[in-house]
C-alpha cells in the first residue's frame, strides 16, 4: 500500500515537472506567448474568470447540457436496447442497421439538427442526446443478447416468470456492458456539448473558449481548456466509482 502511494506521489511530481517545463517554455518565449501562455497566466485567467462569475456560469451551462443529454440518452438507450436485445427477431431485423450506424460520426447530424431546430439550446440538447444514445443503446443490445444461456435454463428450472427473468437475470447480467456504454456516452455528450455551444453560440465553455481564441485571449482560452479537462476527468471518475460499486462481484484478475 505504501509503495502505491509512493509511486502515485512520484508520478504527480513528474506531472509537476512537466508544468515547470511548460512555464519555462512560455517564460523564455520559446513559443510565442500569443500561442502558449504559461501556467502562471493560465492560472490567473482561471482565478479571474471564477471571481467574475463568468467561468462558473459557463461551466454550469456546459455541465447541465452534458448531464441532461446524457441521462436522457441513457434512459432511452437502456429501454430500447433491452427490448431489442431480448428479442431475436428484433436483433435480426435491426442489427445490421445498428451496425451501420455505429461508426457514424455523431457530429454529422449537427447540420440536420440545425436545419430542424435552428441555432438554439434545444438543438444542442437534441444533438447531445442523439449522439450519446448510440454507445449506450448498442452496448445494452449486446449485453442483453449475450446473457449466459445456462442462466436462462436455471430460470426455467426454477419456474421464474418472464418479468423476473428480465429483472433478476438479464438486467444484472447486462449491467457491465450497459455501464461501459454509458461511460462512452458521457464522453460523447461532453464533446457534443462543447461543439454545440461553439456552433450555436450558446453560453458555455465551448463558446467561451472559441471567443477567447478569436479575440486572441490565450490565457482565457487555456483556462477554459483546463476546466474542460477537469470536467471530463471528474465525470469519468464519478462514473468509474459508481461502476466499481455496482460491479463489486466481478472476479479480480
Amino acid at each position: 500500500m505504501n509503495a502505491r502511494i509512493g509511486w502515485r506521489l512520484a508520478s504527480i511530481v513528474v506531472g509537476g515537472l512537466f508544468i515547470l517545463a511548460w512555464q519555462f517554455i512560455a517564460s523564455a518565449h520559446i513559443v510565442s506567448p500569443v500561442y502558449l501562455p504559461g501556467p502562471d497566466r493560465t492560472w490567473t485567467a482561471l482565478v479571474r474568470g471564477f471571481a467574475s462569475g463568468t467561468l462558473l456560469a459557463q461551466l454550469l451551462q456546459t455541465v447541465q447540457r452534458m448531464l441532461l443529454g446524457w441521462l436522457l440518452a441513457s434512459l432511452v438507450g437502456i429501454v430500447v436496447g433491452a427490448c431489442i436485445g431480448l428479442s431475436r427477431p428484433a436483433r435480426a431485423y435491426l442489427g445490421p442497421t445498428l451496425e451501420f450506424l455505429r461508426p457514424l460520426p455523431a457530429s454529422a447530424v449537427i447540420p440536420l439538427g440545425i436545419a430542424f431546430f435552428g441555432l438554439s439550446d434545444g438543438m444542442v440538447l437534441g444533438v447531445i442526446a442523439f449522439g450519446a444514445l448510440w454507445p449506450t443503446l448498442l452496448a445494452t443490445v449486446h449485453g442483453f443478447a449475450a446473457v449466459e444461456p445456462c442462466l436462462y435454463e436455471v430460470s426455467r428450472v426454477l419456474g421464474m416468470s418472464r418479468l423476473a427473468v428480465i429483472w433478476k437475470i438479464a438486467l444484472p447480467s447486462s449491467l457491465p456492458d450497459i455501464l461501459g456504454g454509458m461511460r462512452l456516452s458521457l464522453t460523447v455528450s461532453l464533446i457534443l456539448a462543447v461543439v454545440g455551444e461553439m456552433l450555436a453560440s450558446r453560453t458555455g465553455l465551448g463558446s467561451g473558449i472559441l471567443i477567447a481564441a478569436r479575440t486572441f485571449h490565450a490565457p482565457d482560452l487555456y483556462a477554459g481548456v483546463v476546466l474542460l479537462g477537469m470536467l471530463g476527468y471528474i465525470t469519468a471518475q464519478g462514473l468509474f466509482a459508481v461502476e466499481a460499486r455496482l460491479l463489486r462481484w466481478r472476479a479480480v484478475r
Partner: protein
Amino acid sequence: MDPQPLIAFDRVSMTLGGTPVLTGIDLSIDAGDFVCVVGPSGCGKTTLLRLLGGLLEPTSGEVRYAGKRIVEPRADIAVMFQDYGRALLPWRTVEGNVSLALEALGVPKEQRAARIASVLDTVGLRNKADRYPSELSGGMQQRLQIARCLAQEPKVLLMDEPFGALDAMTRQSLQDEVLSIVAVSGATVFFVTHDLEEAVYLGNRVIGLLPHPGRIASDVKVTLSRPRNQLTTREDPEFARLRRHLFDFIKDEH
C-alpha cells in the same frame, strides 16, 4: 412400497435436430432410489436428465412423475448443472444465489433468511454467505449449487456430471456430502456421470446407456452396504465386480 413408481419413462424417444438421440426408453424409478446413469459420450444421458427436468419434451412416449406427465420444470424436481461457473449468478452473493430459488417459489421474505441459513449449514457454506461466486473455489461453487437445489426442498434431485470439473480430492468429499444429504432428506436422485467408479460408489442402481441410437443396455442393482466409505467400499470385492461389469459393457460397444 408404492403401487406405481415415482418416475416412469414410457417408451420415450427423442430426436434432436433430425438425429435420433434416444429410442425406446422404458425406465421406472422408485422413490428413494439413487440412480446413476453412465455411458460413452453421445449416448444421450444428459438428454435423459433434461427430459426428466422438464427442459425437453419427448418426441414420442411420456415421462411421468407421480403418474402425471412432465411438460415443464416442476418445483419439486431440482436440477444441478455441470458447469457451475455458468449456472450461478455472479452478481449475487452466496446467500443471494440461494435466495433466488426461494424467490422463484414465492416464499415470503420473512421466511427466507431462516431457510437459507439452514441450507447453507447443510453444505457448510454458512460462513461464506456474503461472498461472491468469483471468490469461491470450484468445490464451494458446486456446493452452492447444491444449496440452491436443496432450498427447493425437492423430492427429486437431478445432477448432470456435477463433479466432472473438480479435482479428485474435492470430488470424493463432495460425493460423501451428497450421500449424507440424501440420506437425511430421503430425496430420489438421478445422477449422470462418465465416471464408472463414482456411479457404483454412489448409487443403488446403475443404468448403462449405449449410443447410436441411445438406449438402455444395462440396469444393475448395487447392493453394497450403506453408508458408503471411500476406502472400505472401494475395496469390497462386489465393488470391483460391478466396476468390471460396467467397464466391459462400455468397452464392448467400441
